[in-house]
């Protein structure tokens, strides 16, 4: 036999990397993030807390889309609809005097999961570009539904009187508290998704991404697994919406526009599809660029476009792939 047998075998697979240092690195990243409000106040730039909070919120949404797009191989072009539905759960319940964060979150989870279940079950009957178009269509449906709801601001959207209450307490009225809430949700979502993609379910999902025909031949139909991932992702995006409504204290149909869905896709692709760290990095990069470039020019999207082109040309695998290569490893 060949000499290959005696060489140390490299475990290269589509699973998330299980480097011993990875857990420590993530912990350090969490600590560093937790220090952001302190540092921002320290350097006299408290507005950075708001930007950072928005990054965390969109990171949650991008993570959920990465489950669908990166791990589930479903190019959904309507993911912002779930963020919007989550935000409207806050706005609509608040308008009826229900301000409790937990109740609003539960409502957002249920509504988003149901919307994902119904539209996902229909969309997954199609493939490829048709899937993109039909998810876009469902997203637009949700968008125009909210535009038509004049009781809740219609096109103009609706401002919240105040942020959600936690068991009656004004716990997240301050920006710092909201930051830590968003960070906590992001951390939980991140860890949960890390476990999920490495679980039995996650391995099946990754297998379907790789070769659906092969998976069917060994007994795994794609539909139930992809649909489950789609529903889980929709629910998580709903949570991001709940946070976004609280951050902005304002909700409008613009949250669900197809441009927003496109931005979420850009975040995931920019960061590196199928890498959870990448989704977070992509969200950070896009929001930072968006808020940074927007100061200089209203043509910031042009700068963003250039960045994307460069990234595609120079760094396949997105930010996660680039950093892995700089470290001398490979994209996970």
């Amino acid at each position, binding site marked *: 036999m060949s000499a290959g047998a005696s060489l140390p075998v490299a475990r*290269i*697979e589509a699973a998330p990397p299980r480097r011993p240092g990875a857990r420590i690195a993530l912990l350090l990243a969490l600590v560093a993030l937790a220090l952001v409000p302190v540092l921002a106040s320290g350097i006299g730039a408290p507005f950075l807390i708001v930007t950072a909070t928005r990054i965390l919120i969109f990171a949650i949404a991008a993570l959920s889309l990465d489950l669908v797009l990166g791990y589930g191989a479903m190019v959904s072009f309507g993911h912002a609809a779930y963020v919007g539905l989550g935000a409207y759960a806050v706005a609509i319940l608040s308008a009826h005097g229900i301000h409790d964060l937990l109740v609003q979150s539960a409502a957002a989870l249920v509504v988003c999961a149901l919307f994902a279940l119904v539209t996902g079950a229909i969309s997954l009957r199609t493939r490829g570009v048709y899937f993109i178009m039909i998810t876009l269509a469902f997203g637009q449906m949700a968008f125009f539904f909210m535009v038509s709801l004049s009781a809740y601001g219609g096109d103009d959207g609706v401002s919240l009187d105040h942020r959600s209450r936690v068991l009656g307490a004004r716990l997240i009225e301050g920006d710092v508290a909201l930051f830590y809430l968003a960070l906590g949700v992001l951390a939980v979502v991140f860890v949960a998704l890390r476990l999920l993609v490495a*679980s039995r379910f*996650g391995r099946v999902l990754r*297998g379907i991404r790789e070769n659906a025909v092969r998976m069917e*031949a*060994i007994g*795994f*139909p794609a539909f139930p*697994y992809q649909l489950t991932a789609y529903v889980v992702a929709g629910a998580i995006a709903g949570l991001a919406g709940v946070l976004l409504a609280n951050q902005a204290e304002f909700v409008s149909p613009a949250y669900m526009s197809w441009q927003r869905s496109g931005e979420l896709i850009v975040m995931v692709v920019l960061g590196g599809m199928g890498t959870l760290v990448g989704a977070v990095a992509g969200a950070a990069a896009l929001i930072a660029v968006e808020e940074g470039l927007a100061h200089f020019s209203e043509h910031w999207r042009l700068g963003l476009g250039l960045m994307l082109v460069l990234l595609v040309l120079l760094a396949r695998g997105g930010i996660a792939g680039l950093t892995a290569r700089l470290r001398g490893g490979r994209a996970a």
Partner: protein
Amino acid sequence: MTPLLSVRHLRKSYGALAVTDDVSLDVAPGELHAIIGPNGAGKTTLIHQLSGAARSDGGEIRLAGENITRLGMVARVRRGLARSFQITSLLDGFSVLDNVALAVQARSGSSFRFLRPVAGDRRLNGEAMAALDRVGLADRAGRRAGSLSHGEKRQLELAVALATGARLLLLDEPLAGTGPEESARLVGLLRDLKATHTLVLIEHDMAAVFALADRMSVLVYGRVIASGPPDAVRADPAVRAAYLGEEAA
């Protein structure tokens, strides 16, 4: 004895082309039934129909007496009928072990489990290693499937089919594209599989077919023109004229 696989009057057309034309055949438990025929005879299409990958236009397929004609691929795998692919179809980005472990996972417990890491699952990996051992790939377990040589990929296809736990394996040209050495190894492997599995083997390599087959059917333009023990088929004038004759000439 009731046949494990029984096919009656199976038909399939692509447009005006009758690709499977009134095919009937029986495969007894423990038998290796070879299906031979020239390129484009409809062998792969027949495997697609038997495995549930393609719908049949007419006729009936029974597995151990049960009518499975209307069942999908997944339902047939669960009932013990698995296939391999003429053109290697693996999870190239996964490790060799995980390719096989997934086939074990498919038949052991629910895969709607979301939290416990699966990579280190000893029971799944143990059974997967047993299948890899049987096809002689145990020392490749940690390699990426896409990095295997062509012959090794053919071995892995067999390991995956084995790991599904199926008792009837439909093997579509397992020797396709292999060199003499690899092909000899695979023939040895098929002989070993014969001891434990019922096999439907599609193969162009006549030496291999005549060495392995208990019975065989000859498919030409979607029709079975002869069926029986290898010696009888070899002597069949219609077969000589239509098919083997090409090689004898």
